[in-house]
């Protein structure tokens, strides 16, 4: 563990909290000032996360920029943060999506102050979870990022917003209802009276039975948030109902919290449980991939399409996490990042279209590439990325995961690759129907996207392209965590690398 020369991680959290407080203090009618303050503070978090990503010592690996303060010593709760190869990409992802999410909502004019205050609170929770090394705080940040979602969706959302908000909140809280007992269970069983991740990650601390039990609870609890089939139904409804900036964070980052939680808490603390339940994880993931693709095929609302494609792509992440290999973990974390950016770009583009046309229904849109070519390009780039086309980031994530999946579960691997075909099918269909084909005369006079409004989309698309051509930028960092973890594991559990488990 390398201590931090300067508490960068807390600085990220602090700038989110400071931003929220600053926004609360600004009077309601100074809307432009509120938005400028929001851009300022979110920009700081982006710069800090970018700095941390670049400054991370890839040779040294392990947990860096660590900071720790005792919180409730009698229970073993510490406020401790650090980043490693697994959390750093997610931290950067959050910074990027946060900043572009703020820019995307530049045209909001309804209760602006409350929106941005809640938005900042939401992202504080997300940042906090990724950087936290204390199980108690991981849970606290999980719920902090959960309850603003209700208000954000219920007040500023669109289609079926009250239903979507309630369903999302209750479902995700049900997930936390499984996580909290599991965390306290691990605390009690360890006998160490601590919630610290580092202390609890020592091998051999928990019995096999405890690990299997805890892993199941944690997998289900975090898996609900990650959109694991069949507990994913909150996700498309929530995506559709939420305002664009919130959808970006929701699909782009919130679902990654679930996958990251499975990785950080369930897999790293209960590896024997991981081995035991891996087959089940893989099956659920593969079903999710196919299911998301097939259901997405039938959707007529653009946001529903994106929502179901999210379920499908998160299935790829789940598949990667279930292969019990280094490549699987690498691919899963890479896919988390790539999908996050891609889906943020998708929602951002749809947001622009919706703001102009006030509809997201595919039958009503058409030929948009002739009316608003630049705005259409962004959506098309993201959709192509979602299909796994080489040259864009998602290709690498899916490739690595599928290779790993073939090695461990050949049948499921084939199923997943077939799902790629279905994904391509529905993405192309959406592009064709929405952007090509006959123009809907009602929207023939739309104004194309300006440079200022296009900035967030340009940023996101550039990241996709950059990683598409230079994936090792991300893989180098991920490998510093996945390789030591898996080799440490296989040292203590010899049967790990063999196929045909249990």
């Amino acid at each position, binding site marked *: 563990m390398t201590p931090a020369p300067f508490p960068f991680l807390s600085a990220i959290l602090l700038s989110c909290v400071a931003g929220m407080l600053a926004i609360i203090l600004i009077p309601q009618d100074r809307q432009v000032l509120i938005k400028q303050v929001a851009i300022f503070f979110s920009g700081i978090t982006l710069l800090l996360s970018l700095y941390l990503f670049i400054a991370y010592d890839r040779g040294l690996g392990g947990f860096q920029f660590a900071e720790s303060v005792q919180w409730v010593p009698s229970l073993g709760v510490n406020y401790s943060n650090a980043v490693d190869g697994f959390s750093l990409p997610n931290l950067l992802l959050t910074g990027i999506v946060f900043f572009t999410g703020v820019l995307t909502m530049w045209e909001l004019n309804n209760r602006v102050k*409350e929106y941005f205050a809640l938005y900042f609170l939401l992202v504080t929770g997300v940042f906090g979870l990724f950087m936290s090394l204390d199980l108690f705080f991981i849970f606290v940040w999980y719920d902090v990022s959960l309850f603003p979602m209700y208000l954000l969706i219920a007040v500023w959302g669109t289609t079926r917003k009250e239903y979507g908000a309630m369903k999302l909140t209750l479902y995700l809280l049900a997930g936390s209802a499984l996580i909290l007992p599991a965390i*306290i269970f691990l605390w009690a069983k360890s006998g160490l009276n601590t919630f610290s991740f580092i202390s609890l990650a020592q091998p051999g601390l928990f019995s096999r039975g405890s690990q299997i039990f805890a892993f199941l609870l944690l997998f289900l609890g975090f898996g609900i948030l990650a959109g694991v089939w069949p507990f994913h139904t909150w996700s498309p409804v929530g995506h559709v109902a939420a305002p664009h900036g919130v959808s970006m964070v929701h699909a782009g980052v919130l679902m990654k919290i679930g996958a990251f939680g499975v990785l950080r808490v369930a897999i790293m603390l209960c590896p024997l449980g991981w081995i035991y339940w891996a087959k089940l994880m893989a099956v659920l993931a593969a079903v999710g991939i196919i299911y998301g693709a097939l259901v997405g095929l039938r959707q007529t609302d653009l946001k529903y399409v994106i929502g179901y494609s999210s379920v499908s792509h998160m299935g790829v992440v789940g598949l990667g996490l279930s292969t019990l290999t280094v490549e699987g973990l690498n691919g899963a974390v890479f896919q988390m990042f790539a999908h996050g950016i891609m889906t943020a770009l998708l929602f951002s583009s749809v947001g622009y279209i919706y703001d102009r046309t006030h509809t997201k229904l595919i039958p009503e849109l058409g030929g948009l590439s002739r009316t608003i070519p630049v705005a259409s390009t962004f959506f098309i780039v993201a959709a192509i990325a979602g299909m796994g086309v080489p040259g864009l980031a998602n290709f690498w994530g899916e490739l690595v995961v599928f290779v790993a999946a073939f090695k461990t579960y050949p049948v499921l691997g084939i199923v997943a690759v077939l799902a790629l075909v279905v994904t391509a099918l529905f993405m192309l269909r959406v592009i064709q129907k929405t952007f090509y084909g006959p123009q809907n005369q009602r929207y023939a006079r739309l104004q194309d996207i300006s440079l200022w409004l296009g900035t967030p989309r340009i940023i996101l698309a550039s990241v996709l392209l950059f990683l598409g051509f230079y994936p090792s930028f991300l893989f180098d960092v991920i490998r510093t965590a996945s390789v030591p973890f898996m080799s440490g594991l296989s040292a203590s559990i010899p049967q790990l690398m063999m196929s045909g488990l249990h």
Partner: protein
Amino acid sequence: MNWITAGPEIFYFAASLWFLLATFFREAPTLTPALSGGRREHLTGLFLASLGVLVCLVSVGQEGFLFIRAFRVDLFSQVFKTLIALGLFLIVCICGDITDIGERRHHEFYFLLFTCTLAMMLLVSADHLLSIYISLELSSYSLYILVALRQNQSFGLEAGIKYFLVGSFASAVMLFGMALLYSTSGATYLADMARVLPAIINQPAVVIGLLLTLTGFFFKLAIFPFHFWAPDTYQGAGNQVAAYIATASKVAAIAVILRVVASAGNGSVYLVHALVILSVVSMTLGNLAAIVQKDIKRLLAFSTVAHSGYILLGILVLSPAGYSGAIFYALALLVMKFTAFMVVVELASDGRNLQIEELAGLHRRSPIMALALLVSLFSLAGIPPTIGFTGKFLVFVAAIEKGYVALVIIAMVNVVISLYYYLLAIKAAYLLEPARELPPLVVSFPKKLLAGVSTAVIVFAGFFPYWLVQLAQTTAQTLIGSR
């Protein structure tokens, strides 16, 4: 007997005497002609209540016995006395405008409030079966009358009678239980019982006696199946009285249950089984029944039933961690419930019963009240980082430490269920618009300050719980240590 040891009790006795004397001199010329009668009473009450909090804070370190060891003064009792005094002070703060009790009754109102507080202080100190009984009865009788004082005769009287009948029945059952305990153990002092009971704890008569004795306190805490009075009483009583019952009265009940269980409960499997059933049913029933409520006070009543279930979970683990969880939860409940009731009182300035749909548009009418409501409801649901979450967390930690994992999962499922109805209220405040255009709410600066402070306390104590957790743990230690 050292008089200072009985400081809080003497103070509150004097305070209630003051109000009693005030009723005799109601028609006499007053020293402060500028103030109206109601205002004057309120300021007096406020002054005496705040003085009471100071007296309790000063007496926190006291230790000793009162009245031939019938009352024990130790850190546990003094901490709870401070909580009760704080509860009274907070309630008196929102009593500025009691429109639903006639002005000529204001003296009696404050008299009864202070008497009830006095009774609760005696209750948390009580160390003898009879002193428990007397204190409990004194507090109950004060509350019966307070409930019935409401000017709208049908509401107040009906609620008062329901409360009285259920309460009398509960006391009768409790007396029977006490008689059983005495006949099997030969002890009437709790200290003696702690010595004698562990040996005979598995006799059916003892278990039943213990459960029946606890019935009296379960009634006060609104645990199933002794909770039936709660919704109707909260709805029928004036808003401030309902607030008082929901906060201070529950704190006292928790204290006395802790004392009795800590001294008598260890080692009895049957007692734990019974408490488990009561806890689970209270949680579930309270949460499920609250979903369909349209009246906010009824909703808060059922949520109190659910919270009593969580607290009982902390008590039944019979460990210092569980007791400290219950103590922390008592403090949390005081603050959270008070904040919720404060918003209700502020909105229903004419003293009427507030429906959930009347919360509509609150975010525009008064942002700070809407925020207070939001934070208090999320805290009641147990969402971090609030004081309600920390309380639940401590209880869950204690429970899992002793192996009650299934119970904790059930409790968490209940948390999810409870969030549904809290979200309905929040939705009304933040999302819905009222059917008719309602005027903006003019909130006086002291009320805004109070709302701001209580919101800040809820969030702060959830995020930095260290001091309060330490306090709860030290208090729980005295409970164990004295046995």
